[in-house]
Structure formats: C-alpha cells, structure tokens
C-alpha cells in the first residue's frame, strides 16, 4: 500500500504541470506580498500619495481627515493639488482622477459645513442636531461581518470539495481503462487498493496545501524581515482594504483579536470539511468502479457538479440564523455530506450546543464507516468489471 500511495502522490505532485503551478503560486504570493514595492516601481501613480496644499485654517480643521492617498505639502509650488478659498467658494487646481476629485469634494464640503456651523449660535445648532440626527438603538441584530464570513466559509468548502473529491475517482477510472488494475491487484489486495485510494486523496490535499502554504510563508517571512509589512499595510489602508493604519503585520494580527473560541470554530469547520470531503471522495470512488471509459467518467462528472452546485446555492440561500436553527438548515446540519456546509454556517451565525456538534459529527462518522464497510465489498466485486476479457465477472452467477 505504501508503494501505491507514494507512486500516486509522486505522479500527482511531481509532474511538469504541478511544478508550473507551484512556480506560479510562488511568484503570485511574492507579487501579492510585495505589491506596494512593485506598484511603486511600475505604476507609482497607484501607490505614491498626491501632495496637496490648502490654507492653514482649512488644514487645521481638515488635516486629520485627509485620506492616506494625499499628503499635505506646505509649499504650494511643490504641491500636485491646490485648494484655494475664494470669496464665493473654492477653487481646486491640479491633475487628479475622478476618485481623487470625489475625495477632495467631500473634504471641502465637510470644511464648508464646519465653517458655517461655527458662525451659527449654539442654540440653533442644537435644534438642527435634533432635527437632523435620529437616535436609533439596535438589539439582537447579527453582525454583518459574521454573515460575510459564513459566505466565505461556504464558498471555500464548496471549492475545496469540488477540487479534491473527483481526483481520486479519475485515477481509478484511468487504471481500469488502461488495464493496469489487473496487474496491480496481483501485488496488492482489493482492500489495500481501496483504502490507498482514499488516503491518496487526503494526502494530496494536505500536501498541496503545505506546498502552496510554504510559498506564502516564505514570502511573508521575507516581507517581515524587509519592513515588517508596513509598506503593504499602508497601501492596503490607502486602498481602504483595512479600516485603520498598522505599522507591522504583528500589530495587524493583534488587532484581529483572534480568541480561542474563534480558533475552536475554525477547527470544527475544518473537521466538518474533512469529514465531508472524505465521504464524497469515498462515494466517487465507489461510483468510479462502474466506469469503464473516459466518456462515461465525463458523463458522470456533469451531474455531480450540478448536484454540488445545488447544495452550494442551498447553503447560500439558507444562511440566516432562523433558518439554520429551526428550518431545513437545522435538519441539513445533521445530514451527512450536507452537514459540512450547514454546520459550519450554524457555528458562525448561531450558538450551537456541544451535544448538537457531537451528534452531527457522530452521524457523519457513522455514515462514513457504513460506506467504508459496505463499499469495500462493492469495490471488490466491481473493480475488475469492464476490463479486458471480463465478461466472466459481468455474468457471475
């Protein structure tokens, strides 16, 4: 079995296409983590802030609101953009984009309102506040960011499932169509072959994650040594991907305030993902023993992708706390295969009891064990079907 697994892993991970992908992802991670440096070199307009000049009264009031895409220039002759205060309004000169123009527009409107308000008596300002500002209190409202993370998790799980679950089944089909299976089975038992296929799927997934992860960590370390990631974080803040400026990756990580409970949820989501992938992989392998040609394999893959797409949209559709706690979402969170999408959604959106988690994992495990045990017999009886001179198997009495 060891030889079978190492051979298959070697074929999957050590081939020209894989090496090309490793190289591509390695370069991509480098580009992403050094995006600010590359852009400053090749497209400086995107990352170098515009220098802006305004009178001191305006700067005193609005300086702190100046976005990161602008930097204040004291000398009007050296500034890219100039804001003149005139008797009847404001004059802006300089070469700017539409987006930069909108930012300056907001800045001037803000300054103008503050200046006007300062000239109005306090009693009228207080009255205006009462008219303009309504006091709203929110209670039992889910945080939008949590819904967002639910969507991200569902999509991630869905694509991982699609990527990894069919790969092993294709290998079985390939071995059958090339008649190699008959020779392999003279050296390993059906049982070993069966379990090795499942392990290969898992190992492939883990090793690919490790290989690509290594590329990411390598560039991350280089970036930390280079400038602690401050340049990149600065650009991300300037582009409004980050809500606050950070000086180092460490500081940004600390701001995420990752708690043990969040880690627990991530680990549980990963557990449901692994369980689901293993189950789908197993079912695909069991289906693949009936496939005798590449054409048949292609015919089966279509409905499989469609089915998975339906499950995906179902998970997106049933993505509210109510539906997940009381509706179909609740039932699906205990249903094998579906639980890998619905239980992580529940974990992210609602409070799930430990007993519910144990029940869901238990049902998933029982389904997996049942499939493994019955699948082994099914695999043994059908693996040699359809290979050359195998009519004897088809006609078995």
């Amino acid at each position, binding site marked *: 079995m060891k030889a079978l697994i190492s051979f298959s892993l070697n074929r999957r991970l050590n081939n020209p296409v894989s090496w090309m992908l490793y190289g591509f992802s390695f370069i991509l991670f480098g580009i992403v983590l050094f995006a600010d440096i590359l852009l400053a070199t090749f497209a400086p307009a995107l990352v170098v802030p515009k220098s802006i000049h305004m009178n001191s009264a305006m700067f005193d009031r609005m300086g702190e609101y100046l976005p990161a895409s602008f930097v204040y220039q004291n000398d009007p002759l050296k500034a890219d953009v100039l804001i003149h205060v005139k008797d009847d309004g404001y004059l802006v000169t300089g070469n700017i984009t539409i987006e930069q123009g909108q930012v300056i527009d907001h800045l001037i409107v803000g300054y103008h309102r503050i200046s006007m308000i300062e000239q109005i008596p306090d009693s009228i300002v207080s009255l205006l506040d009462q008219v303009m500002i309504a006091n709203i209190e929110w209670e039992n409202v889910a945080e939008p960011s949590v819904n967002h993370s639910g969507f991200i998790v569902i999509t991630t799980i869905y694509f991982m499932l699609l990527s990894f679950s069919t790969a092993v089944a294709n290998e079985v089909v390939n071995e059958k169509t090339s008649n*190699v299976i008959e020779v392999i089975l*003279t050296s390993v038992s059906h049982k070993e072959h069966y379990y090795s296929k499942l392990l290969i799927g898992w190992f492939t997934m883990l090793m690919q994650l490790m290989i690509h992860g290594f590329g990411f960590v390598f560039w991350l370390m280089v970036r930390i040594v280079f400038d602690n990631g401050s340049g990149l974080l600065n650009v991300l803040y300037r582009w409004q991907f980050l809500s606050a400026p950070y000086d180092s990756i460490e500081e940004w990580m600390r701001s995420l305030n990752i708690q043990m409970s969040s880690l627990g949820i991530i680990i549980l989501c990963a557990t449901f993902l692994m369980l689901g992938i293993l189950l789908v992989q197993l079912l695909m392998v069991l289906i693949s023993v009936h496939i005798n040609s590449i054409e048949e394999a292609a015919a089966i893959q279509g409905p499989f992708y469609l089915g998975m797409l339906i499950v995906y949209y179902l998970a997106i559709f049933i993505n509210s706390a109510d539906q997940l706690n009381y509706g179909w979402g609740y039932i699906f969170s205990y249903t094998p295969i579906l639980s890998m999408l619905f239980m992580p959604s529940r974990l992210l959106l609602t409070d799930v009891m430990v007993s519910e988690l144990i029940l869901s994992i238990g049902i998933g495990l029982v389904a997996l064990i049942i499939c493994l045990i019955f699948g082994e017999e099914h695999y043994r009886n059908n693996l040699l079907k359809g290979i050359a001179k195998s009519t004897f198997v088809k*006609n078995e009495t």
Partner: protein
Amino acid sequence: MLRIERLTKLFALNSGCQDVSLACKKGEIHGVLGKNGSGKTTLFRCLLGLIPLDEGSVILESSLSTIRQFGYLPEERSVIADLRVTEMIDFFASLKQMSHKEIREEKVVWLQKLKCEHLKFKRLRECSKGNQQKIQLICSLIHQPDVLILDEPLTGLDISNVRLFKQVIADYAHSGKIVLLSSHQYEEIEPLCDSLTVLDKSKVILQGKLGDIKRNHPIKTVSVSEDAQMIYALQKGITEIRHEGNTTRYLCKSEADAINIATLALKNRDGRTIKVESLTLKDLLGDQQ
C-alpha cells in the same frame, strides 16, 4: 512445486473453468492451451487471486513472501503510457516490495537481457507495441517470482522478438522457476513447453508431458514442399492431407506409413524439402478440438 487441485470457477453459461487439476515442478514450462473462451484467463486469474475460487485449492511450495510468489503478464497491454520505462519498472517492482538496491540491480540485468537499454528514458507511449510487451515482461519477472504466468506473451511480436521472448522464458524456467503460459501460436510454444493442459469449454480435455502425448499418438506427419498436386495422396496409411501454402502435409496412421511416403518423396525429391515430423502441437490440438 505448484499443485492445483480440482479448481472450479464457473460463471453463467458454464464459462470459466471446471475441475482443473495440474502439477508443475520447478524448472517446468507448462502450456495452457485452448480456444478463445475455454477458460485459460479465468484459470490464471484464479491462481493470482484476482477472483475467488468456487472450489478447489492452489498449493505452492515457496520460500518467497506471498506477494512475490507470482508474476503476471496479462494478454492485454497494461501500461501507464505517460510513464518512462524505468518509472514503470520501478513502480511494479516496488509493489512487489523490492528494495531500491534490488530494483536498481535487477533493472539493469533485465533491460540488458531484453535488449531495452536504449528505451530506459523513453515514455511508454513512444515505445512500439513489441517494446511495451518487453517492458511488461520485465515488470512481471523482475522480482523473480516462483511462478511466472504469461497470458499470450507472443501476441503482436515480430520474429526476432518472439525468438528473444522464447529464450528469456526458457532461461527463466531453467533457473528453477515455474512458467505457465498460454498462446494461440502453437508452433512457437511447442519447443518451449515441457507439459501442457488443453482446456475446452471450461474443462481439461488433454493433459500431460508433451513427449508422452506425442508418443501415445499414432499419427506421424510428412511435409513435402512444392507439392500442390498432392503426389502421394493415393499412398496407403494417409488419414488426412493439409495444405500450408505450397507445402502439403500428409498425416499418416503409423510411423511405418510415414517412413514409406518419406522414402518415396526422397527418391523423387527434385529440389523439394521433405520433413518427417512427430505430431505437432497444432496437429494435436486440431485433432482434439
């Protein structure tokens, strides 16, 4: 020693093999012959454990681990086309739990024996059918199994490769191993086989040492080339006349009848080739089936 006792594996319509018994000693080449669908491949697959037996037993006296006891060359091409020759050999050898050192050493020996050194780094898809067959043969015997099973090993080979295969198979058997082979090319395997089993409709219809079978059979053959006119057709003792190209083969009742015809033919030779033969495997099987 390989002993198969009353092996039965039947499928619908009585296909498969029924009540097959045979014994092979070390160093013996045993031919398993029969028409298509007579049960040869089923017998091999049962021996290899690919399909379970209905009845009977297979006993092999061997000092090797179970995984290394058998080597198998299937009739159909079964190569991983995108692999290089050495990669495929490495894979099948490692499945047989050979160490890296063993694989390295044996690979060199067998590639040399089968004249494939130049193919080492070629992908199998780039190799000819004959060369792919050679590589498959290496994969089946690199671990030096006690029993080498070859299902139609000579199919699709050119004359020089047939000769090479026969030589390798004979040498392998002489090294104290058992070779079981099936083929439709009876003329080619006849000089190789020490004993044979003929299957027909799942059952054994003839079995034994080739010499014994021939000895027990009264018919003898005289072949005369450039004899389209069947000059000796009216001689006594002829049971059957067969044409093969411009050669006529007279199958006689007894050796005396055959010698009589051969003597006559020698007298009127006129440049013709005259052969007095024992019964060939082809004749025998043609006769039996």
